[in-house]
């Protein structure tokens, strides 16, 4: 039961984007299409799980004064691995995510989980925490991307789903659309939470 809790808390109760408002930059920047959102979600989840494992393994060897630089080096290494592997095997995805792959390093979610969770817990629960947070992040990304892609292009995952007569509201995939979408989603999320309690 406890393990299940570690896994699911990241998805709704402590959702990194809607509840904690962490890691906003990549969320808004790459959510122009569902394809990008899945790629980014997968990359960030991999880095989260990897850095959580390594950090919880070596947490006892790191003097607490240099822990932040040490975490950053570990996270940056995983990010570089993702960057290189993605460029080699998924070149077009790598191109459309562009700058935001190296910027996973400064994604507050990852350093935040390293500091708040992996540095205090066992490897097993750190892995679960990483998976849960990764899924929460990816899901939020996919939700935002779905809304923006459908309104902005009339497509979902690259397939036309609205009738061709629909005039796409291009604004939704431009920067302002990202801000509006996340603002409205957060308001709905707040309302839903308020109603539940």
């Amino acid at each position: 039961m406890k393990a299940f809790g570690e896994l699911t808390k990241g998805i709704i109760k402590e959702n990194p984007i809607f509840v904690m408002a962490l890691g906003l930059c990549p969320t808004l920047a790459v959510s122009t299409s569902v394809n990008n959102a899945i790629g980014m979600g997968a990359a960030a989840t991999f880095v989260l799980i990897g850095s959580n494992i390594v950090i919880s393994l070596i947490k006892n060897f790191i003097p607490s004064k240099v822990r932040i630089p040490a975490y950053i080096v570990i996270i940056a290494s995983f990010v570089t691995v993702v960057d290189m592997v993605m460029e080699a095997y998924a070149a077009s995805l790598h191109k459309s995510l562009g700058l935001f792959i190296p910027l996973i390093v400064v994604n507050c979610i990852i350093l935040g989980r390293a500091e708040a969770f992996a540095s205090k817990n066992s490897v097993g629960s750190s892995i679960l925490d990483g998976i849960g947070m990764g899924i929460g992040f990816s899901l939020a990304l996919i939700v935002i991307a779905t809304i923006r892609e459908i309104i902005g292009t009339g497509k979902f995952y690259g397939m036309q789903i609205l009738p061709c007569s629909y005039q796409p509201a291009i604004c939704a995939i431009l920067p302002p659309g990202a801000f509006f979408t996340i603002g409205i989603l957060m308001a709905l999320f707040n309302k839903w939470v308020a109603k539940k309690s």
Partner: protein
Amino acid sequence: MNDVVKMGLVLLIITLIASCVLAVIYQKTAPIIAKNKQLEEEKARKSVLPEADHFQEITEQKIIGQDTVHTILYYKGLDKHNRLVGYTFRCEKYGYSSNVQTMVGIDTLFNIIAIKVISQQETPGLGANCATSEFAEKFQHKTPENIMVDKDGGDIESITGATITTRAVTNSIKEKFIDIKERLIEK
């Protein structure tokens, strides 16, 4: 003092291990990345000059200071019997929000066979439409003299809401095309 040494040592070890791991992965992936890029270029060249079977690189040597710099000018497209069927070249210009790169295929009489936008990060839904085949078709059978955007008095119809992108593609092709035509006629 002892503490400082220990902290430095721990950081150093972590960084060293990380660098070694990355170096190994870099060596594994770098050739794949380079090969992918090459394949992609080759594919783009084939798509704008489908008659060609293989391509031959034509470079220009320039002496800048003490270094000799080789720049690729264009590719000769040759068919299976090594007969010349046309040329391909690559051109680029800054559009609305990104550098737009286009691959162009021309026949031996200097008419455009096809073009393909190979790299762009323009506005989705507007400028990004320059990568569609409908836009590329507008350039078919054009000669360097009559490539011009409609707003500048030519007959390349601009993409709705993206005149700047259209102009970038059109002008980049025109400039390079004229340059290459002159070089080829000189020969």
